[in-house]
């Protein structure tokens, strides 16, 4: 569909960790600008490693990683990230946690103090869209796990990054909260159309959220299948019970089962 506008491109990439673990090998992957990509695969296959490669936090041992038309040589400067563990700063209020990227990323950093009012208004609006209105002045440890994860999503998005990287962001949450946050994330994405890469173990989550699901083999990880999810948006919980959705999930599950046996 939009495949002509490649935003992230990995070409024959391998990464060996110090200690000799070959984590990913000869990996090819491409993500179009504005695309929502999900990556699934057996545990330990190199999904988190793939995230580090794309964001430049770990350099490739072999091959090329290109993001936004440029070869990745060091950490990218304007990526939003969120992990399974919300990693909010306990000494900052929820609002101040969300504002943190603006104190670091240029061009906001230079004028952060002067424009503080404006940024606060924006952060509050963002918190409201994820259902955290009224919790701005609470500390993260006064929030539930699900609420912390929502705040962490806001922190990843406040500086309007071109690329959002999510590593199992909802894995520690209960099923209800998780499904609620799928909808929240989908809404944010439909509004802003950032390029997103989501790593998950939950195949329903992958199919619900993504335009494309990449299945990885067991370690050393390679992409063994790329499945386009042709379900119209906005998707709802009802969608997840439709036969086509269920078929896609089954298909992916079978592929991962094969990948695990092959290892």
């Amino acid at each position, binding site marked *: 569909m939009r495949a002509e506008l490649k935003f992230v491109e990995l070409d024959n990439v391998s990464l060996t960790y110090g200690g000799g673990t070959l984590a990913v090998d000869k990996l090819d992957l491409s993500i179009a600008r504005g695309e929502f990509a999900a990556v699934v695969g057996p545990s330990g296959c190199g999904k988190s490693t793939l995230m580090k490669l794309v964001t430049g936090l770990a350099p490739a041992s072999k091959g090329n990683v290109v993001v936004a038309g440029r070869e990745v040589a060091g950490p990218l400067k304007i990526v939003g990230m969120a992990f399974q563990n919300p990693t909010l700063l*306990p000494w900052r209020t929820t609002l101040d946690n969300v504002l943190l990227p603006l104190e670091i990323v240029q061009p906001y950093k230079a004028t952060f103090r002067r424009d503080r009012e404006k940024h606060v208004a924006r952060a509050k609006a963002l918190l409201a869209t994820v259902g955290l209105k009224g919790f701005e002045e609470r500390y993260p440890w006064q929030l539930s796990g699900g609420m912390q994860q929502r705040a962490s999503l806001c922190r990843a998005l406040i500086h309007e990054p071109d690329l959002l990287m999510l590593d199992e962001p909802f894995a520690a949450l209960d099923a209800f909260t998780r499904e609620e946050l799928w909808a929240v994330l989908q809404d944010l994405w439909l509004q802003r159309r950032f390029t997103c890469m989501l790593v998950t173990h939950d195949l329903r989550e992958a199919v619900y959220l993504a335009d494309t699901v990449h299945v990885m083999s067991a370690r050393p990880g390679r992409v063994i299948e790329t499945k386009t999810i042709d379900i119209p948006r906005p998707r709802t919980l009802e969608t997840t019970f439709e036969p086509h959705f269920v078929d896609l999930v089954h298909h992916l599950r079978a592929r991962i089962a094969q990948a695990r046996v092959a290892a």
Partner: protein
Amino acid sequence: MSRRWQEALGPWFVVLALFALWEGVVIAARLPSFVLPAPTEVFATLVQFAGPISQHSLHTLMTTLIGFGFSVIGGVALGAAIGASQVAYKAVFPVLVGFNSIPKVAIVPVLIIWFGIGTVPAVITAFLISFFPIVVNVATGIATLEPELRDVLRSLGASKFDILRKVGLPRAAPYFFASLKVAITLAFVGSIISETVGSNEGVGYLMLQASSRFQIPLVFAALVVVAAMGITMYAIFAGLERRMTGWATRGMDQAAYATGH
């Protein structure tokens, strides 16, 4: 009695019981006062020599606070430097540990040769002995930053300095304040050791003089004052810790951080 009152009065009760036991032992064993004076006698001496004791104690307090002040400044600076850099950490740490293992009593005579009898060696000893826990705690607080959080910051283009300022230092704060409690009591030990070895002022000097004249009750009176100053300083810094780092205990009142030493 409510739980709060029990907690507030508990320490006083223990101190009183300790003094009572002490008094009892002295009376029962008929210990002469040049071996072990009874607490009543110690307090009588304390009142009798209130002038000289308070004068020397104040001197020791000043010496201790100056040495402690230097170790706070130096400790935070060095702790931040070695906490922020793996290379610096590995390079400096063995030397620090080695240095900390040297008994400070052994250094005092050298300091006296260098700086003469008096306040300067005492300040330096207080500094040397209280420096280590602060460095270790600040460095630990900064170095134990979660890798995910570091990734979040680096992918925002944060510089090392940004990471240190926005996350490293605030994160190290509870460790730092916990170490202050330990460091201040150590600083007392340091300045008194130095005063005992060579000085003409301070509680250490007073005790040395008193014991050479067999005024054992005076020695004990001075010890009681030193202990009281130690407890007071500890309480002040514990209070400061609670105020500054309430978030670290998630609003609870318990801190369990590595306190070094």
